[in-house]
């Protein structure tokens, strides 16, 4: 019993409250009047998901038909009736060589998802075998003072997800370490605020693509002697610069608008500047700082895809771009898989931030 209460608390806390209502439904703990609430919280989202998939299926089917008709029509005018008939039967047979290229249906996306996982398992096994095979040789090479041989095969979809997460966290940390201290200084000093204001106003709306180019210009020159691949460095710095503004502005605002009563208390007690910042100003602006960090993380995740694509840095962005260029039969379906993965990870990151925010801040107002 006690455990179930704490579980309910935890799920509510991370904003997945409907899970505990779902549990109550099955354990029969629910009162009649709660039933409406359960319906709204569980059945309605599920129904709307099904509706979405249904509409998607119908839409994909009609797009498929338009594309198929057009292809056959074209074959008829260009190559004559025999070619058109051959194409018609080829499309009907489901042969992958002549399928119309359009929005994939939900089932095609699900198949691609499974094939990506299979592909991942194959690559994983391949990598493990490679490491085993080269273990002895690598030991010898290390003993001779040479570099070890590393696996250089194609990264799997899952590898690319982790690579993207790594980039986004590096960028997020960079944003955190620049924006929070700078925001505090700007918030505390009206002089610094007017010194930085133009800078923030001008650079805040700059697009991720331009940030990428700017960072590229600078990092390329700085790392001119280095033979290493700088795409990771460039992409995480660009992500950091794109996403830090929300935190910077929110921190500065939080610090500048600390409740006057708290400041008066600090004045009456004659707290020193250090104590004033760490005991009064920072704790009271934490809710706003975290709101900023939450926005920063979601912006970082959003711009990451575009930046990886430009920087040719391995990750989901590059995956999407390569599939698009690739134009294979299941490329479109893979792109949609990537889209869902990106969306779901973005949602999870947001939830994690919300949980941390609830945990550290005194202001227990419900987040969305």
């Amino acid at each position, binding site marked *: 019993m006690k455990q179930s209460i704490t579980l309910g608390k935890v799920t509510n806390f991370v904003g997945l409250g409907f899970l505990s209502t779902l549990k109550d439904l099955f354990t029969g703990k629910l009162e009649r009047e709660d039933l409406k609430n359960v319906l709204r919280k569980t059945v309605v989202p599920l129904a709307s998901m099904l509706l979405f998939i249904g509409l998607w299926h119908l839409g994909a089917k009609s797009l498929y038909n338009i594309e198929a008709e057009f292809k056959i029509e074209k074959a008829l005018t260009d190559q004559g009736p025999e070619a058109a008939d051959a194409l018609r039967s080829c499309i009907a047979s489901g042969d992958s060589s002549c399928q119309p290229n359009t929005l994939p249906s939900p089932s095609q996306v699900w198949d691609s998802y499974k094939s990506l996982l299979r592909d991942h398992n194959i690559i994983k096994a391949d990598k493990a075998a490679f490491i085993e095979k080269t273990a002895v040789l690598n030991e010898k090479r290390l003993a001779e003072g040479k570099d070890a041989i590393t696996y250089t095969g194609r990264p799997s979809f899952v590898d690319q997800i982790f690579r993207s997460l790594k980039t986004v966290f590096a960028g997020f940390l960079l944003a955190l370490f620049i924006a929070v201290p700078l925001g505090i200084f700007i918030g505390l000093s009206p002089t610094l605020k007017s010194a930085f204001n133009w800078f923030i106003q001008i650079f805040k709306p700059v697009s991720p693509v331009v940030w990428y180019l700017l960072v590229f210009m600078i990092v390329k020159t700085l790392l001119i002697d280095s033979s290493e691949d700088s795409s990771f460095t460039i992409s995480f710095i660009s992500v950091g610069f794109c996403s830090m503004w929300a935190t910077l502005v929110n921190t500065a605002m939080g610090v500048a608008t600390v*409740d006057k*009563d*708290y400041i*008066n*208390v600090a*004045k*009456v*007690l*004659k*707290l020193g500047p250090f*104590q004033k910042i760490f*005991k*009064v100003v920072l*704790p*009271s602006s*934490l809710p706003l700082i975290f709101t900023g960090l939450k926005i920063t993380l979601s912006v970082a995740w959003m711009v990451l895809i575009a930046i990886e694509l430009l920087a040719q840095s391995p990750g989901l962005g590059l995956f999407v771009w390569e599939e698009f260029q690739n134009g294979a039969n299941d490329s479109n379906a893979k792109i949609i898989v990537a889209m869902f993965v990106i969306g779901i990870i973005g949602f999870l990151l947001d939830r994690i931030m919300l949980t941390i925010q609830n945990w550290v*801040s*005194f*202001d*227990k107002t419900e987040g969305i």
Partner: protein
Amino acid sequence: MSVIIENKQSDILKKQIFPSHEVMLDLKNLKKVYPTPKGDYVVLEDLNLQIRKEEFVTIIGHSGCGKTTMLSMIAGLNPISDGHISVLGKHIKGPGPDRGVIFQAPSLMPWMTSLQNVLLGVNKVFPHATKAQRHDIAKYYLQKVGLEDAFDKKASDLSQGMQQRVGIARAFAIKPKVLLLDEPFGMLDSLTRGELQDILIEIWNKEKITAVMITHDVDEAIFLADRVVMMTSGPKAKIGDILNIDFERPRTRKSVLEHDDYYKYRKHLIDFLEH
């Protein structure tokens, strides 16, 4: 009318000037001006008030007459336009822990526990005491205000009345020379207000810290004070009248209400406020 008040006021001031060794807080020719686009707005002018050591003074007056301005000037949170304020003969410069303040809103740091809130001031005022000693001081005052069970409760989890109790403990714990109270019970319901007045007067009887308290409540003003200072309405507010409350201490609410002079004092104050 105004001439009569002027005369009356100078009488009062002549009567209530004390030998300097008895004076804790001295306001001399105090003036506060707020510049506005239409010219200066004078809130307070020629305000003179002496408050003796171990005296409890309440200040009463209409809203907007400048009571809070005066108190925040004494606290050092609001700059003085002219004249000066001295504590034990020394002119004040800005805020400091020799003048403890109990604000109208409890103004606790909501992310700290009640103990941490009290310690915030104690740590500052007693930097050379050991950690245990400082905790003892903070806990002692929290016990005094009846919060011995809530040391580790977050301030945000306390009711308004409990928060103001912590506010009282925080102000007394730094052992100020002067205690400034800005309508500390104004936001509370009347039952809680009564409770907190009892707590305040009980702890004050023990510590005898010179206190200046603003209030809107005539009964509160009489119950707590040695003298009630009545301020004229602004602009250019000054001291209109001063009423000595000669009940002996320690007082109980019952003895005060049953005292023969109580309604006389009450009538005096209400007549002033309604003139």
